[in-house]
């Protein structure tokens, strides 16, 4: 009856908000005042007599995404009206694309395999509904049209994803791509998914789960939904086609409606908008400004900078990190730079609950710091502490090292002096070590490190200490 063979079949419909300055069909700003209904005009409010005018930047953004996903491009851009009545719709129809989506038959490369993209199309966002006392209990609903008319792209995948984890990976990879293209605000922008999911045990009865926001949620929602379906089937229930919604607070999906037939949106052309030709010339121009994408970067990091695959993948996953790395690797040994960015920088940022884009320090600061590490002028230990300080607030690293006398102690005579001091002060530890207790040796090294305030390298201290104690 159907072609599926996998245990779990998942297809996604993902809505991405493009980061243009203005809305898709009017000049209203997409960002700014958060006060409800302040970023609106007659067009995005759907007032009688208003007309749409297409935002060319949004088209460019959408084309970039289609190219990055290897889509077959439509020769022309045509918009349709999708009709349904709902209070968040300013015109009770949504301007979207139907017959001829901008891009078709693309693919996105994941770690293991490629996932087919059925279509990519453009559309406008509806307004947002606000339920003052929660969706179930609120006695009334407020409508905020600030979002009405924001440009969206919808990406529809083939039903080829096999697990919740893979769906998460897909979303993550898509977000990475959007970040590389700089057409989506990775940190503040909205990305939402509706997932179609079915399992072998039920005979692949499709359940649609709506309203899943972000890549972490998709794994949770799908895991829940798959378990739910398995449980229902194991209890002998027969699944019917349903549309469900994800409640992220409760961590459950709940029934919205039974799907006896497909909804009928009565699509017609929106003849208020003229056809836009997608010419070869236009595509060539966009191709010229297409940035390197994540897989190109990973390849490059491996072949040019000789990074390990895993390091290359982690650094390339975020465009900001990748760009910072490339800038740093111009001045610093690429392997050293990779180690410091991937491990230390990410650790310090996580610890401070900061995102890379929120960091004030820039590549110059990082280069200054790592050049001191590279030339062994400071120890890793000191460098870590300086990095922590840099994330809080940038400063001139070289000056600070001189001023605070943080330069590495590598004069072996000086180190010998510290070692002897440590031995004299801790005769018990020396005895214990000689009696075979390794820990005591480490204790003595630690004492030296403390005396040098971390400015010595443990390796050197080790060697000197060994020489003295024997």
């Amino acid at each position, binding site marked *: 009856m159907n072609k599926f063979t996998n245990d779990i079949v998942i297809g996604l419909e993902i809505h991405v908000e493009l980061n243009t300055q203005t809305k898709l069909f009017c000049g209203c700003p997409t960002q700014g005042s958060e006060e409800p209904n302040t970023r609106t005009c007659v067009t995005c409010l759907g*007032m009688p007599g*208003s007309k749409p005018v297409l935002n060319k930047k949004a088209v460019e953004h959408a084309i970039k995404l289609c190219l990055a996903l290897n889509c077959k491009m439509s020769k022309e851009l045509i918009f349709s009206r999708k*009709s349904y009545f709902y209070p968040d719709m300013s015109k009770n129809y949504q301007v979207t694309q139907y017959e001829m989506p901008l891009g078709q038959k693309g693919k996105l490369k994941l770690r293991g395999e490629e996932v087919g993209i059925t279509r990519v199309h453009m559309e406008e966002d509806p307004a947002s509904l606000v339920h003052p006392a929660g969706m179930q209990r609120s006695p009334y609903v407020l409508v905020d049209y600030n979002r009405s008319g924001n440009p969206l792209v919808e990406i529809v995948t083939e039903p080829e994803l096999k697990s919740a984890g893979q769906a998460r990976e897909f979303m993550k990879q898509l977000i990475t791509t959007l970040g590389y293209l700089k057409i989506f605000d990775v940190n503040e922008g909205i990305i939402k998914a509706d997932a179609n999911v079915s399992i072998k045990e039920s005979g692949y009865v499709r359940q649609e789960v709506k309203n899943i926001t972000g890549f972490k949620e998709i794994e949770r929602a799908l895991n829940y939904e798959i378990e739910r379906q398995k449980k229902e089937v194991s209890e002998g229930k027969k699944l019917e086609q349903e549309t469900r919604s994800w409640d992220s607070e409760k961590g459950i999906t709940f029934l919205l409606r039974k799907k006896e037939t497909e909804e009928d949106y009565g*699509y017609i052309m929106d003849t208020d908008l003229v056809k836009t030709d997608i010419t070869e010339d236009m595509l060539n121009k966009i191709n010229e400004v297409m940035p390197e994408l994540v897989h190109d970067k990973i390849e490059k990091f491996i072949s040019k900078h000789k990074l390990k695959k895993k390091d290359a993948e982690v650094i390339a996953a975020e465009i900001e990190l990748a760009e910072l790395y490339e800038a740093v690797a111009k001045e610093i040994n690429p392997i050293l730079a990779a180690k410091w960015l991937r491990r230390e920088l990410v650790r310090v940022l996580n610890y401070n609950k900061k995102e890379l884009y929120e960091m004030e320090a820039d590549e110059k600061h990082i280069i200054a710091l790592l050049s001191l590490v590279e030339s062994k002028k400071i120890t890793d230990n000191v460098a870590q502490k300086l990095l922590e300080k840099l994330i809080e607030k940038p400063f001139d690293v070289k000056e600070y090292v001189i001023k605070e006398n943080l330069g590495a102690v590598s004069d072996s005579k000086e180190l010998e002096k510290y070692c002897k001091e440590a031995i004299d002060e801790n005769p018990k530890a020396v005895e214990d070590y000689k009696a075979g207790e390794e820990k005591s040796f480490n204790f003595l090294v630690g004492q030296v490190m403390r005396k040098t305030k971390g400015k010595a390298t443990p390796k050197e201290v080790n060697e000197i200490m060994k020489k003295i104690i024997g």
Partner: protein
Amino acid sequence: MNEYINKIKNKEIDIVEHTHKVIEECKKINKEYNYFNIISEKLALAQATALKKDIEKNNVKNKKLLGVMVSAKDAICVKGVESTAGSKILKGYKPLFDATAIKKAVEQGAIIIGKTSQDEFGFGSFAVNTYNIPKNPHDKTRSCGGSSGGAAGITAKAHFPHIALGESTGGSIAAPASFCGVFGLTPTYGRVSRYGLMDFGNSLDKIGPIGKTIGEVSALLETISGHDDKESTSLNNPIEKYSNIKADVKGMKIGIIKEAFGNGVEKAVDKTVWEGIKKLEDAGAKVEEISLAMPIEYGLATYYLIGTSEASTNLAKYCGMRYGASEDMKDSFNEYFTKVRSNNFTEESKRRIMLGTFARMSGYRDAYYIKALKVRTKIIEEYKKQFKKYDALVSPTVPVLPTKFSEIEKLSPLQHYMMDVMLVGPNLAGLPHMNVPVGFENKLPVGMLLIGNHLEENKLLQLGNEFENE
């Protein structure tokens, strides 16, 4: 009109006093004939007062419509003046902006005197599907024709220089112009911006002038034509100096549409139109009979499928959410929307919404909506073929003399729709066409239809000039 403009400029006529008189005359006429849904007294006087100041400062040199009274079909938005498109559902609605045609007319010194009555949203051929039914200026028991009935009526009845802004989707300028015995020109689709026009069918709607003289029609057309950044379908082609057109038809080739005469056409209409053709021939035009079966045979079906499909989406926005009629709010939004729409649309609107919704539903869409789009292309091709050979095509405008209200009641919806049989063709093809009053039969006006090639309004005006003194 030019004489009048000079008198205004020379202060022989005081513009404010004159406007007062006009408003009084309109009120008087309106009591008997229902041409205005609203007379914009305040706005008109404010505009007159402002003009007076400019005249005193000698600031009005090249204004083409200085002090000329212009009325607007109700569907054309005028800022701050109740605009209902003839529908109860928009009672009390005051637009937040001027339509581009209004803005341009006012910039050229026009004074907006009111909103003229029409069939609700343009749905009709007799201007009876509304809350304010205009009566024929030549016989009050008869219809003005529709849908721009009030516009044509006041144009015929006014004793002061006045031009009307009408709107045609499937014949709504030419038909009432014919019934009222005035010139009514529907321009090429896209020649005049639709910004601020409440939509009926977006691919069909055209704003155009209705006037007593070719000079007036030309002056208003010249004023309102041109590209508009706010309206994507408005054309960028240069605007011709329509007002400089001379009466010279020598050598022009005219095709007489054979299928539009004879069967189904009232004898009196047939005879009078042929007299008009004779007149053109006498003036030196070359006249030949041609066959143009396709638009007559398939025009109505094609027009009603496309027009109602588009209209049914355009009217979705009228649901009592933010403006216009409202009802008690109980139950869900769905029930509320239904109640607002059930209680405030006329039967004809409901009929067309249902027709249009049906034609675009999946399962029927290909057979009706999509097929109609294809036939439309064929119809355009057929016209284009003729324009390789002819400068203009001729037929009667409407097959009958102005219809009595008592007869209209007896007509079936299909018989109503038949009134537009000559007119839907050029409207579907976006071709400019004009009603020319060619004579009277039993004191009732007869209209002849001139159809021109795209953007050749000049030829229609040239031919129409021959009838200027009728």
